[in-house]
């Protein structure tokens, strides 16, 4: 149990930003992010008891995150919170100007991603987390060559969307 706690906390520290960014990439309404985030944390805690260290924690955490977000039903969600989203958007409001510009760019990127289909959102989220094509393919269940083709198409779509903004 102690060991499980320690591993859990270290996973939380290492992956919390990544988990949340993936939640943002996938959800068209990001105000549900905290609910999904909690579901992911719960799934990681429960799954940790049976985790066989065949692969690293990374792919395992990403699989749980992607699958939990995929099955998340906002109609079942008990509460809607904008708090986490606001954390990202508001965090640097009073900082330097270029930082504010960065936030704007980030928001534009979110908007462009949310215009994509759900599958593409998930795929680009994993790509932006710097996962290899093989890892993305194994998480989603498609071949790595297919991942490559799709990512190129998605990048073009995002670029078009960003140009429109």
């Amino acid at each position, binding site marked *: 149990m102690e060991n499980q706690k320690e591993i859990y906390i270290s996973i939380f520290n290492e992956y919390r930003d990544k988990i949340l960014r993936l939640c943002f990439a996938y959800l068209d309404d990001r105000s549900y992010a905290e609910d999904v985030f909690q579901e992911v944390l719960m799934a990681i805690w429960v*799954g940790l008891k049976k985790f066989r260290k065949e692969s690293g924690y990374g792919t395992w955490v990403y699989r749980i995150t992607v699958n*939990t977000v995929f099955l998340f039903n906002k109609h079942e969600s008990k509460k809607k919170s904008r708090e986490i989203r606001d954390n990202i958007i508001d965090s640097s409001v009073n900082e330097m100007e270029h930082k504010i510009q960065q936030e704007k760019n980030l928001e534009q990127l979110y908007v462009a991603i949310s215009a994509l289909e759900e599958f593409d959102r998930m795929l680009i989220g994993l790509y932006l987390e710097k996962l290899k094509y093989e890892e993305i393919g194994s998480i989603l269940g498609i071949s790595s060559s297919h991942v490559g083709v799709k990512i190129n198409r998605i990048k073009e779509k*995002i670029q078009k969307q960003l140009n429109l903004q």
Partner: protein
Amino acid sequence: MIELWQQARLDETRMDNLYRKEDLVPMIVSLEKRQQNLLRFKTLSVLILLPAIMILFLNMGIVTPVSFLGMGIFITSVLVVVIMLNRLRFRIKDGERTLSTLRLAGIAEKKIQTEKKLFTTYLPLFLVVALIGFNLMFFDYLMEEEPATRILYHLVMTGGLAVAFIVGLSVRIRRFQKQFLPVQERITKFKSKSKS
């Protein structure tokens, strides 16, 4: 694009307030316990309710082979339905959460179909069996009544049980439409998109 994406970080202080390290594990453990307790409560309720009905029934002095047969049929059908609802209801197992999303989508799709079968096939079947059992339970008890009164009693019992069942079923159907239809649509889209 990657760089921009990676820059999105949470405000550490605010995040630490939301999920304080010392509270994180207790929070998750209590959430897990709450879910387990809910399941225990439901099982316990059925286990208490059924013997209570039996005792009440025996206290009414209805002890004939037909009434016993009826009680057997009724209780068995209730137990079967409770077990079925528990076993067949949509639930993603821990191991399934670490499968590839495409495989999980296939599994989830099958589970949704099973869930649908619950209220289109199994539950209506349960109603018929439970109604037969329930009417048999009181068959001998009402024997001394006038035929018209007997028929009326049986009709009232059948109607009451059927209405309660239909109300329960419609709640379930509404829940299905709200919970599972969006997931079903998402799975269909996901599968077709993964091939394109």
